């Protein structure tokens, strides 16, 4: 067996599998650091995954699809912000609303536009050789080789982790985002435009989550499947909490989960003897069990931003 190949392929798989989750988690990190819970990640990813494919379908170019996805993400973010920031509405309700709408409306569009409730036609996508980011000379180096032929969105997800870390902890915007997430009234008294900052954070977060949807339908796959994103948004939410609301933490959490997935595939595949007799369900449940295990064992109690999820109403200060 070709070990280098196996290692690199598995690692690549891990990154590919982690990307959507990571995007979702990062979207959540930004939004919740500003004090706005966004459980609509799942729904936003679904919208973006679909409209991304739609854009690529009409234009034959995944970048157009990506633009559409980002646009829809921004719109949904604005929608969430309008309800939760402008009108200080319940953030959970708003998030659930987006999720429910996403499930129903996208199925509706799928049927309306593509005459199917199954999945869209195949379209030009970032995973195809034409759009891959090729670094051929590292191809056969163990571990490094995994990065030889990744699609652009994986790279974006990785770079974004550090960009967001920088924004949150080294820029004025980041300081203000965290301040309104910790103690909005205090920020208000210092002249920070609390509502504006929240608007920015929520929309930014939604756009990032949207990229997660794109990386699913135009990165990993080349079409929209009605089951998308099949819970990855919620896993992203979990990864965000697991990662203690920090970009780096979210990345580690996503990688842990994705690794467990890949490991599970491999174990299942090479299972011999008694291992082969272990029901598939246990293999498939493994990543989720490991996650809980990690929480209990290593991570422990996570502390959310102090004002996370608390609607900010000026008068009731």
């Amino acid at each position: 067996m070709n070990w280098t190949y196996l290692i690199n392929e598995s690692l690549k798989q891990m990154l590919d599998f982690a990307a959507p989750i990571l995007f979702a988690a990062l979207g959540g990190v930004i939004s919740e650091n500003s004090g706005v819970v966004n459980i609509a990640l799942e729904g936003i990813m679904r919208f973006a995954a679909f409209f991304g494919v739609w854009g690529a379908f009409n234009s034959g170019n995944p970048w157009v699809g990506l633009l559409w996805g980002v646009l829809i993400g921004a719109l949904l973010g604005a929608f969430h912000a309008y309800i939760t920031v402008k009108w200080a509405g319940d953030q959970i309700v708003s998030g659930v609303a987006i999720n429910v709408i996403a499930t129903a409306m996208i199925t509706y569009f799928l049927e309306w536009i593509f005459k199917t409730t199954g999945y869209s036609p195949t379209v030009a996508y970032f995973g195809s050789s034409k759009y891959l980011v090729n670094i051929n000379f590292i191809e056969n180096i163990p571990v490094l080789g995994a990065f030889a032929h990744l699609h652009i969105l994986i790279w974006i997800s990785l770079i974004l982790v550090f960009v967001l870390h920088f924004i949150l902890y080294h820029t004025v915007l980041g300081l203000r985002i965290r301040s309104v997430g910790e103690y909005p009234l205090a920020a208000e008294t210092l002249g920070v435009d609390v509502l504006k900052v929240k608007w920015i954070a929520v929309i930014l977060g939604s756009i990032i989550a949207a990229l997660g949807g794109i990386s699913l339908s135009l990165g990993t796959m080349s079409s929209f499947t009605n089951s998308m994103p099949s819970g990855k948004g919620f896993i992203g939410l979990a990864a965000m909490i697991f990662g203690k609301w920090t970009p780096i933490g979210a990345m580690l959490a996503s990688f842990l989960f994705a690794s467990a997935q890949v490991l599970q595939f491999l174990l299942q595949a090479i299972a011999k003897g008694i291992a082969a007799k272990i029901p598939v369900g246990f293999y498939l449940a493994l990543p989720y069990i490991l996650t809980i295990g990690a929480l209990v064992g290593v991570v422990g109690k996570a502390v959310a931003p102090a004002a996370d999820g608390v609607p900010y109403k000026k008068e009731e200060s």
Partner: protein
Amino acid sequence: MEALSAKNIVKRFPNVLANDNVSLSIEKGEIFAIVGENGAGKSTLMKIIYGLYLPDSGEIYVNGEKANIKHSRDAINLKIGMVHQEFMLIPRFTVTENIVLGDEPRKFGFVFDYKQAVKEVEELSNRFALVVDPTEKVENLPVGIQQRVEILKILRRGAEILIFDEPTAVLTPEETEELFKTLRKLKEANKTIIFISHKLSEVMEIADRIAVMRRGRVQGIVKKTETNEKELAKMMVGRDVVLEIQKVKTELGEVVFKVEDLTVKNQRGVVALKDCIFDVRAGEIVAIAGVEGNGQAELVNAILGFLRPVKGTITINGNEMKFITPYDIRRKGLAYITEDRKRRGLILQYRARENIILGNHTLYPFSNKGILNDNAIDEYTTRKLEEFDIRPREAYMKAQNFSGGNQQKIILARELSSEHKFLLASQPTRGLDVGATEFVYKWLIEEKKKGIGILLISLELSEVMGLADRILVLYKGEIVGVTTPEETNEEELGLMMLGLKRKVAQ
């Protein structure tokens, strides 16, 4: 020349008329004090001036010009700064981050230049002789220092009009003196200062003019030189107030509370209380004096079971408690009056009736076999509202809509009516007006007469000297002084509190 004036300000909240046609005019360079009962509308007025609330009607004038203040931003631009009753500090941020937030030094327009910020804060604190460690996290600072941060915040924004809403409520005498020095310096720098306090002595010391508010109206404005504490108190409350505490002697009974070699680490794992030994006997008031942040919080949390002692024992009514959990100490006969009404004392969204049974709610007649008895609760609540003169007499009003003083009364009504032999009173009069304070003292003495053992934690030396039978001074988590009001005086206590003097019997 007039620096700031409010004309016919009206502000109505769902349940109250907080500001009822308020008009004030403040001269440049003066220290203008506002006193008034809890709920009189002082903070509301200040919040309106600072742009946190919008008035229903009325105008604000700054330096003679009509100002329209919709945001704190507008107030800041008009060089108004405010130190709020509840600190506006972000615990997880450093001193520097807290001070520069909203007007941060930048690189390339968007990068937060933290180094530069730290430098500015250092300069600032040197200039005004307000010493702080710019890189320390605020959550690790004692309130005294936290307040300096608050003041630095507004000074950095070049405020000309500085509002202090009950700045001394959380300060020790020394810290208060510090603050006053600062205020005088600012006054010399020709800055205008609005100073709100319930401590008339302070007002008499620092203010030039004093406004008295009552039920949302301005009762009157007087020159300091033309009034005295008694008169002010009467204007505020509308009756004569007994400001000095009259002592009562009682028979001391058996030991109701005892700690032995109590050693406690705080959340950050630092030893905050070392080998404390003391007891409280029935009918006795033991006061713990000390600068805030010297272990009082940890002592309370250990007694309540929020912190597990690393060493030593706590005994309440003879029950030694190894692993105390907050929910069962109550059944051991402890009552607790907290300074932190909003977080620990009350469930703000619950109505008065629900708050007033909290802790006894599992008991007959409020509940029977787990089922609540609403009529019994209503009947009981109405009785207690009367007995403790809680206003308004609204059993169904949410706790958050009562004013500070009445919130405290609800807590008193609940705690003092519950089955207990030992009372833990932690700064029971913090932020209370003279009337309410008098009220609290009256009840503490009642308790003492009833033979309840009381552990009183206080920053108010007058309170300590007035109420206590024994005084323990806490410094850096150690008991550095054991004395009685007769054997000591405020100066000596002050020295001990600052760790400059030790006085431990036996």
